[in-house]
């Protein structure tokens, strides 16, 4: 089987993915699938998306050789794909531009989005402002409290941020609420999902918009080092930045692939957000994938210092890559991620997002086990400005 050609026609990656939604959503999803099938091959649409990526987002994002960090570890050489330098500060905008342009093509005037850390919400509010679309962002009450700055950014951009108070009041509940909004307002509303999860075609569509990361990286690494990297490392919450980096390398079997989940207080503690490392397959949010669930099939609350990784599911393509053993899924704790955050900041002068700090932390462990001649490419998926309050609070400071 060629993993590059998945999903199949009905949206499955092996046993994962699919369309598990109420009948009320089947038709809007079919409408979206048909529109995406049409425009993904439309040269005008793609040219418009690429022009925005260049002139508005600032792509291609550079790759930076983290020489001092690599030297301090004494092992493999670490390179960083600088998605943190994108407009709005993370990889999320690659996808929101694509989906918002699709929304316009479909004649939708209102976009909705769910957000955890607020990065996808900001990226959605940004493109809505740019395209003159109405924008409503659903965000859990708990996340609103811990990501105040991003809430204010969204409001500045003209979006309405709706607080979600059901369930655990975090990202998964925001997703539920956005789905309810969509089903109620299907005529004029486009739902921009921020990660490679949800019912087909979302996992494939979001991946396709994010693979610009991996396509650029292949060329850039060959230009810089004369060959492909020996290993790729990216953090995995829902998994969009990771699949964006990994996918163009799937056929390169010499390139080892590592997805890094949030181990929170440790996988043994139960206080984590690592469904691939410690969960079971199940059905949530329109797709079958690995989930954090209890023995009755109820979804359980996740724990991570990083709001963007605090999600009980994961994209179905990652679930399949895990089972196929094409990618390795590992986890690092809050403490390890914080340590990496400080290391990168002090040694390279780059403040990473707490999400991306998980990838840095694992790359640092991996580098020590590899030779100096080998290379690791890490997706630095976002910048850490949004996390100042969280990191300061760890040190007992209030900003």
């Amino acid at each position, binding site marked *: 089987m060629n993993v590059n050609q998945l999903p199949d026609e009905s949206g499955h990656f092996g046993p994962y993915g699919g369309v598990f939604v*109420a*009948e*009320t959503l089947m038709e809007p999803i079919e409408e979206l699938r048909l529109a995406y099938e049409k425009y993904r091959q439309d040269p005008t649409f793609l040219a418009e998306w690429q022009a925005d990526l260049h002139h508005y987002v600032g792509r291609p994002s550079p790759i930076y050789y983290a020489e001092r960090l690599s030297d301090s570890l004494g092992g493999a050489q670490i390179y960083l794909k600088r998605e943190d330098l994108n407009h709005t500060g993370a990889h999320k905008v690659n996808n929101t531009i694509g989906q918002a342009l699709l929304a316009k093509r479909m004649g939708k005037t209102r976009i909705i989005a769910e957000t955890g850390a607020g990065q996808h919400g900001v990226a959605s509010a940004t493109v809505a402002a740019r395209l003159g679309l109405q924008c409503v962002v659903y965000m859990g009450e708990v996340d609103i409290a811990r990501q105040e700055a991003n809430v204010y950014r969204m409001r500045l951009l003209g979006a309405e941020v709706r607080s979600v108070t059901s369930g655990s009041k975090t990202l998964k509940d925001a997703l*539920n609420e956005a789905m309810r909004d969509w*089903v109620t307002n299907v005529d004029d509303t486009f739902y921009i999902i921020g990660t490679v999860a949800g019912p087909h075609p979302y996992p494939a569509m979001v991946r396709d918009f994010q693979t610009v990361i991996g396509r650029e990286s292949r060329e850039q690494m060959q230009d810089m080092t004369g060959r492909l990297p020996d290993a790729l490392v990216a953090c995995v919450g829902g998994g969009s930045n990771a699949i964006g980096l990994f996918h163009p390398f799937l056929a390169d079997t010499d390139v080892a692939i590592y997805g890094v989940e949030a181990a929170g207080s440790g996988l043994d503690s139960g206080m984590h957000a690592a469904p691939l490392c410690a969960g079971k397959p199940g*059905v949530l949010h329109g797709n079958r994938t690995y989930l954090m669930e209890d023995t*009755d099939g109820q979804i359980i609350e996740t724990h991570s210092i990083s709001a963007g990784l605090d999600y009980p599911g994961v994209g179905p393509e990652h679930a399949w890559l895990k089972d196929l053993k094409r990618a390795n899924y590992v986890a690092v704790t809050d403490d390890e991620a914080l340590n990496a955050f400080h290391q990168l900041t002090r040694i390279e002068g780059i403040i990473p997002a707490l999400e991306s700090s998980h990838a840095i932390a694992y790359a640092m462990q991996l580098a020590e086990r590899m030779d100096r001649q080998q290379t690791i490419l890490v997706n630095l998926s976002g910048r850490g400005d949004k996390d100042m309050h969280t990191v300061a609070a760890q040190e007992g400071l209030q900003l």
Partner: protein
Amino acid sequence: MSRITDCFAALKHQNRTALVTFITAGDPQPSMTAPLMQTLVEQGADILELGVPFSDPMADGPVIQRASERALAQNTSLRDVLDIVREFRSQNLTTPVVLMGYLNPIEIMGYQHFAAAAQEAGVDGVLTVDLPPEEGHEFIPVMQQHELDPIYLLAPTSTPERIQRITGSARGFVYYVSLKGVTGAAHLDVQSVADKLTQIRTMTALPVGVGFGVKDAATAKAMAQIADAVVVGSAIVSQIERLVDEPSKMHEAIGELVRAMRTAMDQGA
């Protein structure tokens, strides 16, 4: 013949429309559910829908979401729900019981295990909200093997092709969602519902129920004139929520609401 088919046949004979009532199992306490089911039947319900609580009820409005949360706060599991049905069946052997919920709790129990246990407990039909027929090729045969009717939703946006496909997999009855939205939403347009029912009936001989938005006796009466079954959920669950601290009054309040709907529906016939 299933209890559901028998029920619709008997009602047709009497020229009456079925009243289908929904409550969430375990709301507010697992021990209260079977007695509430008895009250619903005594006051005029023909078919009982029992919600299986789930942590992420994507297709439900706030009233039923909160019911799910109350039930989960009491740790009501799918196994507990089947115990409740068994308890109800010890007193009532005729009224059909349909479970309504989401796939994940069933999946983790295992399709075979669940279907066998549900049949043994006396369940008649299962409406798995997030399992469209396209994804049901493993579960549906297992349900049928255990004489459980697969019940499906149809939506205002369902195309003729989808109605065909769904009614092809459905048994017992089909449940038409009368508006775009979640359970308990407002604004029912009787004429557009009637038009859609006409279309659905050209494609299936199964009875067609209407729900999502039946709030009171007046809407129940209007729907009874065009549908084979009227499904009432959020209106009843709201009464449970209102009286959560005065459970002694719950039976009276719910009984009154159901009786009023029953009377209005029968008058309209």
